[in-house]
């Protein structure tokens, strides 16, 4: 039987790797993929804890997490596409001008 601490350590490692992808890779698609890795670390935490306590609540939480992820990915991918379409931006540094000139450049 795997102890709970080992599963939690693996989940924490996955979460930190996803956070590093979000913070270090400054491209929009890589940020979304890093978010996926972080959510999977959370899912592993929930399932390991649910198996440890012996009830199905962790799995219910992970099913809810998958639904939230699907909704998030759909909207975020369209937003990435719109950012590329309007501003030719694939990196987040080019999306920092949330001021008057965005009004002028878009209209």
């Amino acid at each position, binding site marked *: *039987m*795997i102890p709970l601490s*080992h*599963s939690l350590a*693996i989940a924490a*490692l*996955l979460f930190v*790797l*996803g956070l*590093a*992808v979000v913070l*270090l*890779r400054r*491209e929009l*698609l*890589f940020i*979304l*993929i*890093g978010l*996926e*890795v972080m959510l*999977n670390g959370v*899912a*592993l935490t929930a*399932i*390991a804890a*649910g*198996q440890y306590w*012996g*009830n*199905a*609540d*962790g*799995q*219910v939480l*992970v*099913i*809810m997490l*998958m*639904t*939230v*992820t*699907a*909704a*998030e*990915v*759909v*909207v975020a*991918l*369209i*937003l*990435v*596409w*719109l950012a*590329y*379409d309007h501003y030719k931006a*694939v*990196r987040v540094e080019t999306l920092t001008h949330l001021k008057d000139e965005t009004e002028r450049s878009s209209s």
Partner: protein
Amino acid sequence: MYEFIFYLSSVIAVIAAGAILVVRHPVHAALYLIVSLLALALLFFLLGAPLLAAFQVMLYAGAILVLFLFMMMVMNLRTERNLPLLLPANWGGMALLALLLWLVLLLLLSRSSLDMADNIMVIGPTAVGNALFGPYLVVVEAAAILLLAALVAALYLSRKGKR
């Protein structure tokens, strides 16, 4: 033996997640993410959650990541100019990890599952369904409203005209 399979698949998941940090093209990152998700599905199965292992393969790797790859190929965002979409030289890493994961799965399937069924507590689909549609019915309705909101947002953001 059970511990060896568990730690080997967890090592595959962590290596595939770490490879996302260093690859250059987003398609490669998505493929490494698929390998990591499959290894995580094996971890879920070994922890005793077979329904979530199947959902991980079907929903995450089968639906969400295919949506990712489809949108990446349709959008064709050029992070670097004039780079071909898939470099043939970079297929090695994820193919090696996927092959290793397949060998782990073969190793798991070749063992008689009776010797480790006594020390894994399996929570099957029946218990999950009873919990999901019993005390957590409000969560299901909230998920329905969330999916409706995501559908409305997708239709609104991808409408034609007013560009």
